[in-house]
């Protein structure tokens, strides 16, 4: 019997599909003979009472979730997402540096420092990557700090904003596609495969409505993992391997028949009727991993 704490924040229950998925985790754990309790921000002192921690709140080194992960890790608990995965996945500079080092196919990328941020450098970037280019703040998630620019003025405006919190930012060639492949990976094995479609006329999977705090997300199309392209799955596993043995969601673009990794996410979203649609065993696989 394993005592599992599931670290969540209030917003994890605000979408009914996510709330249902969380209940599925709980029921699956209990059916397998384990304890499964939701743990909130105020409950960190309870961590030592558990054997493993499953983090569903958004992970970032700046958030409480990292404190939970690192505390559990220091105490010798099993933890998903582990602190190393959080560190690497939360920072695009970190992650893309590893892609470069280990030869994971990725979008052509450069890093730009505050100091090199001048006219000549910007002109050179447009020359090499063409127009537009994509600028990303290293800490972005939910597509919030990923923007497309096609002239020096908007380049400067966006970069300046992203430099407020990070001394380095990411610039990439613009490579649009109709959807992102999303490959869920657990412990070096493919867990599920979906396509995250772009909303009509958009180039990002998630788009903020003008003047509103809410996001619109494209449709999710789910495949049976066994029916997904083999090379797609290989590429996803290769990218995860350089990060760790936890739970990941890999975003991949298919461009002229090649698979190019956009990024590896730790803490991938799992919504009832979406990621679990074709492979119902994903809850059980994750619970078994937490209780190994």
């Amino acid at each position, binding site marked *: 019997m394993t005592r599992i704490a599931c670290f969540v924040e209030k917003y994890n229950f605000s979408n009914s599909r996510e709330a249902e998925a969380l209940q599925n985790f709980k029921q699956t754990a209990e059916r397998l003979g384990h304890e499964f309790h939701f743990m909130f*921000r105020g409950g*960190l002192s309870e961590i030592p009472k558990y054997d493993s921690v499953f983090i569903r709140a958004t992970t970032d080194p700046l958030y409480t979730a990292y*404190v939970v992960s690192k*505390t559990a890790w*220091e105490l010798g608990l099993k933890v998903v997402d582990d602190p*190393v995965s959080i*560190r690497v996945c939360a*920072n695009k500079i970190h992650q893309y*540096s590893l892609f470069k080092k280990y030869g994971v196919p990725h979008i052509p990328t450069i890093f730009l420092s505050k100091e090199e941020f001048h006219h000549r450098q910007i002109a050179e970037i447009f020359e090499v990557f063409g127009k537009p280019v994509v600028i990303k703040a290293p800490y972005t998630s939910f597509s919030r700090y990923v923007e497309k620019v096609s002239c020096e003025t908007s380049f400067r405006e966006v970069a300046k904003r992203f430099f407020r919190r*990070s001394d380095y930012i990411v610039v990439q060639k613009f490579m649009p596609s109709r959807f992102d492949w999303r490959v869920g990976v657990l412990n070096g094995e493919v867990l599920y495969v979906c396509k995250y479609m772009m909303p009509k006329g958009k180039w990002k999977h998630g788009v903020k409505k003008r003047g509103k705090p809410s996001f619109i997300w494209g449709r999710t199309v789910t495949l049976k993992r066994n029916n997904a392209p083999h090379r797609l799955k290989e590429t996803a596993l290769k990218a995860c391997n350089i990060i760790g043995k936890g739970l990941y969601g890999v975003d991949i673009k298919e461009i002229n028949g090649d698979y190019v990794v956009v990024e590896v996410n730790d803490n991938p979203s799992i919504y009832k009727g979406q990621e679990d649609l074709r492979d119902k065993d994903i809850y059980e696989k994750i619970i078994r991993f937490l209780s190994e």
Partner: protein
Amino acid sequence: MLVVSNIDLKINKPVTKPSEFLKSSFRGFVLNVNNDYRYMKTGYYVSLHAEVLGDEVVPTTENALDAYRPPILLTRTAKNGAPIMPFIVTDSVRQIMAEFAFPVAVFPVNPFSFNGFRTAENRTALYRAVKSLSMNYRYAVCVQPLQGEMMVVKCFFGECACEDNSARAVARKVYETLKIPVCKLYVQRFNGGAYLCGLQPLKMEEITPSDVDLLSKMVSRFSGKGWSD
């Protein structure tokens, strides 16, 4: 061994500027001496670059991140035998009041700020401190009982220019655990003991000429001794 620093060290070996190092592909041991290792600041990226190259580096990105997060700092140093104050992580004033009597010390948990800490003697002050240090409840805060005087100690490789022996022992323990070359420690003194409460980056303007002397001495000692210990 390569010394990378944004501080004008007085040592008789070359010092590489962070921006230069970040363009290099140096292989070997890197000593990253910076006043600020906060997440996503240049000092952090120096350690990250070294790690990606496969270099050994002090401090590691793991330690740089952990050191500025009070709950992790306290958990890790306590595990290594340092005296610490009890603490809770929360954003709920009610929970804090159920746990501790006033006064309390409130530290930010998000490592973005140079914020120091706030003390609260009563409920109103506590509300204000929690609201401001949590950036309007976006992040949690770390709260500890305030039982003595809070000392702020500048610390270089575990050495500090302070007279207090028990505070110096805490500084050495913290360095032994996290290897942060330059930092500011928050330590509570009472009942003849010193208890670790927090660690934050030093602002450039807080580093005096005599601090630079002490720091330079420590860097020379560190590089002379090599990195085997």
